[in-house]
């Protein structure tokens, strides 16, 4: 038995390296064959390219090369032609990223009282025409693993004031993370609800909906931090987002510290009902602390429906709606003995909400008309406001757009809209907008 075992061990010791060598040789042979095939493919490609005539390559013997064009007529010669050449090779002098400029000019006309109270849609800029946002965008790949976007904005922020230039966005997106994830860090317009991440010139209306301005401020949620998305491998589309930010937004948060960060989240799904109908639904949350170190949470719901008849270049009907619900704690002065002096501070919860719903019809490629209805409470002050805003848009080309709107706002209270003895309880405004795009601009998402 011992002898048998010994023989077996010796055989194993001898045969194992031999088997490994044989495996190595087989792998090498396969590799060489692969390389030979690749070489053959490259050689064929080279031969084909060398044999190519200046005209497009014919399919084979059955294909004739394109004939020379007949001599141009006098009309041909007289006609202005674009500066085209044929068959020119590409490659030289390419910029390694894209850049574009978007300009957005807005104007409004309203009552004198509203101007005094600074209670119009563009508070402090009533009865003026001004550059709201002129944006320089630079975007492209950093390397095979990441892309970057930098946007610098200039605009008139105060009545007749200097044009202020600031960094609107600057972020890096890590594209090659595992398990269907992607991360973004820097200064970003938060993907919170539908309209928050859209820049002013890309909005489907002239102004941001009242509820967004009341709850998140005129600039919206624009924060510094990190956010990550996860798209699971499912038969339907769902995107989950989570983010951590400083909480610099003064209207809703304002704690400005990662010790008590602003945490955001969003779930977005999409239903395609045939080729013509599409519906996007989502819900968002942003939770942090206010400057007074008190908790503030805003919940959001969004929906967007589009009906685009087959073959149309634009949707015929678009419906958009969002609702926000704010849960916030405030310090309230307590005058226990009624002497008019605050004796202590009490904490009080205020839950407020608001929503908007908009519909747009675009029967022609260059023209669209729509209506938006807004209803919103104020996060701190009592009362509510409602607006109705019909508008019309005209695009002379894809890169230029004009828009005009009438907006009627009714507020339940005058408080907060009564500066300089004016009143903005009822506001009638004519709004107009001219927007352009110069150079590159990324495609618009749904």
């Amino acid at each position, binding site marked *: 038995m011992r002898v048998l075992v010994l023989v077996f061990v010796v055989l194993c010791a001898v045969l194992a390296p031999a088997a490994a060598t044989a495996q190595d040789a087989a792998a090498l042979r396969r590799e060489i064959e692969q390389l030979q*095939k690749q070489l053959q*493919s490259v050689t064929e*490609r080279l031969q084909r*390219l060398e044999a*190519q005539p*200046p*005209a*497009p*390559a014919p*399919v*084979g013997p*059955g*294909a*004739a090369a*394109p*004939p020379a*064009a*007949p001599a141009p*007529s006098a*009309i041909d010669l007289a006609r202005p032609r*674009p*500066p*085209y*050449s*044929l*068959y*020119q090779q*590409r490659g030289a002098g390419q910029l390694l990223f894209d850049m574009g400029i978007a300009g957005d000019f807005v104007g409004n006309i309203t009552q004198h009282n509203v101007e005094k109270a600074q209670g119009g849609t563009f508070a402090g800029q009533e009865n003026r025409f001004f550059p709201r946002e002129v944006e320089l965008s630079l975007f492209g790949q950093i*390397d*095979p693993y990441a*892309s970057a976007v930098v946007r610098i904005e200039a605009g008139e922020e105060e009545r007749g004031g200097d044009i202020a230039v600031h960094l609107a966005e600057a972020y890096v997106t890590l*594209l*090659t*993370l*595992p398990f*269907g*994830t*992607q991360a973004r860090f820097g200064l970003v317009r938060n993907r919170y609800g539908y309209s928050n991440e859209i820049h002013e010139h890309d909005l489907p209306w002239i102004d941001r909906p009242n509820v967004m301005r009341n709850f998140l401020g005129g600039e919206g949620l624009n924060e510094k931090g990190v956010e990550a*998305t996860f*798209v699971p*491998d499912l038969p339907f*589309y769902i995107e989950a987002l989570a983010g951590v930010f400083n909480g610099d937004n003064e209207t809703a948060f304002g704690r400005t510290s990662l010790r008590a960060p602003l945490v955001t989240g969003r779930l977005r799904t*999409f239903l*395609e009902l045939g*080729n013509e109908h599409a519906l*996007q639904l989502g819900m968002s949350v942003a939770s942090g602390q206010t400057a007074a170190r008190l908790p503030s949470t805003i919940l959001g719901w969004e929906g967007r429906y589009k009906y*685009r008849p087959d*073959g*149309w*270049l634009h*949707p015929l009907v678009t419906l958009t709606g969002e609702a926000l619900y704010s849960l916030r704690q405030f310090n309230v002065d307590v005058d226990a003995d009624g002497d008019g002096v605050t004796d202590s501070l009490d904490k009080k919860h205020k839950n407020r909400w608001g929503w908007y719903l908009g519909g747009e019809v675009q029967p022609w*490629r260059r023209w669209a008309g729509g209506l938006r209805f807004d209803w919103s409470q104020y996060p701190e002050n009592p009362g509510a406001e409602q607006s109705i805003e019909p508008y019309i848009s005209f695009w002379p*080309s*894809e*890169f230029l757009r004009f828009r005009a709107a009438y907006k009627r706002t009714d507020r339940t209270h005058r408080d907060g809209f009564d500066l300089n003895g004016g009143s903005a309880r009822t506001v009638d405004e004519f709004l107009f907008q001219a927007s352009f795009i110069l150079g590159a601009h*990324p*495609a*618009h*998402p*749904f």
Partner: protein
Amino acid sequence: MRRAILILGAALAVIGPMLPVASAADKIHVVATIPDLKALTEEVGGNLVEVESLARGTQNAHELEIRPSLMLKLRRADILIENGLTLDSWADVAVQGANNPKIVRGAPGRVDVSRDIQVLEVPSTGVDRSMGDVHPLGNPHYSLDPGMAPIITQNIVDGLARFAPEHRAAFEKNRQAFLARLDEAMTRWTKAMEPLKGAKVVVYHPQWIYILSRFGLNQAATLEDRPGIPASPAHLTHVIRQMKEERIKMIIVEPWNDLKLATRVAEEAGAKAVVLASMVGGVKGADSYIAAIDHNVNALAQALR
């Protein structure tokens, strides 16, 4: 023992139906930006690939709306085949939303089939938007020319073989079989178009230069004032006068463009407005690459005869 057999039987009954799914899952998931590239990839990939297209044949491939459903298609893709030359730059936005590192720009799964194409209408001076929506790298509609199919399919073979080198021979075999069929069709098309060489046509959008050059036809004017810019009445009047003077018989219209306007202009000029398949699936019956070219050649021959 009986119990063991029962468990085994039940397990087989559960797993059995999954087996074909597993086989489908083994296929290479390819997404093409436009239907022409989907059709050509299917010809090359055969039953080794499963191909989806982001755009439909009746859509304008220049301006695709980025729906999350496109991101869903890209989420599972092993390979993304794109036309390039800025026609389908919108794919970048969809890829960003898909969270799939295999197909981001620069990854091996990203295949630009415009490599080695001899591009027409490359701007030879500086361009700006006063010239309309000009493609700065040249006219990107090369897939409409069947003469470009050998180069496109070679690029597809290379892209697929990068992902699955063990199938290169099979892809190459499929490609050769397809090119043989295309050769036969090309003989037929060339014969049909031979008597029409030198004929002039008006196009709605300037995307037909490759197929027109292939068969010796001349693009005399465009209905659009400039690429992507709707025609002014003055421009249309000029085109009608030109069509009458030069006896132009045909206006080529894309399935997504304004056929009514083209028909009105054609009637004024005593010509016909004909819808051609700007991509596979653009018109009824054009459901494969060869069928789409077949439709276009027959429509051209009929209208110009």
